[in-house]
């Protein structure tokens, strides 16, 4: 275990920039001169090796950060979030709304057996479902239905194109094809 590697491990794992004095205190083998030396050597290694990160001086301390030229890639990466696929609960909720619309939150929750608030919000943010009216009864609950974005995304011309597979669960298939009164 060399001084360079100890300094590298500390810079990597630290939450904040570290001063030379702080680094020197970490191990008996280190002193401030040795730390300065290690920092200089690591910089050379990172440059020569073409590393995407480097050692930067911040507020009197040192920190390992990605080089600024990668900012664009990182930003773009963030713009394509991990969650660009819908989760299983979101897919189920979407299916229920698609086949049962217009449908209230209570009914969705009754079918799935779990609360639907978070998932409904996700689907609304994605503009796949929206509020299409209010139901009868206590509190006149909001009713949800699918949007134009939903049709466009899944390549349907109208709701009549929604496939009705044979194994569609009874709770989903209750809404009749024949009820196309809006057309």
């Amino acid at each position, binding site marked *: 275990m060399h001084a360079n590697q100890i300094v590298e*491990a500390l810079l*990597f*794992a*630290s*939450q*904040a920039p570290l001063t030379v004095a702080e680094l020197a205190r970490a191990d008996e083998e280190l002193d401030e001169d040795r730390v300065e030396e290690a920092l200089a050597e690591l910089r050379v290694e990172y440059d020569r090796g073409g590393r995407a990160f480097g050692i930067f001086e911040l507020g009197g301390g040192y*920190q*390992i*950060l*990605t080089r600024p030229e990668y900012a664009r890639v*990182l*930003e773009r990466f*963030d*713009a*394509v*979030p991990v*969650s*660009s*696929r*819908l989760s*299983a609960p979101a*897919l*189920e909720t*979407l*299916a229920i709304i*698609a086949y049962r619309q217009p449908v209230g939150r209570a*009914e969705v929750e009754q*079918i*799935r057996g779990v609360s639907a608030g978070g998932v409904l919000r*996700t689907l609304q*943010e*994605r*503009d*796949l479902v929206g509020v299409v009216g209010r*139901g*009868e*009864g206590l509190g006149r609950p909001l009713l949800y239905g699918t949007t134009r974005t939903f049709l466009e*995304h*899944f*390549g349907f011309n109208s709701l009549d194109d929604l*496939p*009705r*597979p*044979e*194994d*569609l*669960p*009874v*709770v*989903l*298939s*209750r*809404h*009749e*094809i*024949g*009820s196309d009164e809006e057309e």
Partner: protein
Amino acid sequence: MSTAVQDPFLVGLERFQGPLDLLLHLIRKQDIDIFDIPIARITEQFLAATLHVDRLELDRAGEFLEMAATLVRIKAQMLFPRRVEEEEDDPRADLVRRLLEHEHFLEAAHLLVGAERDRARYYPKGYVEVRAVPPASEAPLETSWEDVRGAVRAMAERLEEPEPGYRITGRMVRVDEKIDLVVAALQERASIEFSALVMPWGTRLHAVISLLACLELAKQSTLTLRQASPFAPLWVYRRGAG
């Protein structure tokens, strides 16, 4: 008798996570063969330990007292004669099974502790630059209809079929809707088996309403209904066909 009570290993129940833990501790500490537990002795020791139960919170106390009752019951059952060769007859069998299972999960937990300790030796980056993450709605959606189909299939397996006649308010099955459906079906095909009209819904309600729709259409001479014999499949024919 009271010597067991004074046993030095009986140090407060707080250190035991539950009655199974305590019981296992008593057995292992005394090198008792778990397949031949001296139930009278263990029961006595367990009861002595649970005397301090009033110091515990109420729900924990309940757990210990329930086990005490089980032990007392087993002790009583042990007094009845039983055939030696039949393991199942041993009143202790179920308790032994639970103790072994508990012990194995203790072991598994121990393995997890080891894994956690090993993993903790690898440190992640302490500081990660903060980047503004755009809202998810701006990201392209990578979900296909096949994904939705998968969810539907999973749901079909998961969800119980509701009892026949189960209806959601405001979503009654209407005869005129069924009539439209039957007429539409007969525009595509000259004949269709009645059950095929009902299959997508599968409930008795839909079957009844569909039948009413067919009878209504038969009355209007829009279609004819045929059945070769009682209980044979019912066929629906377009007028003029068949």
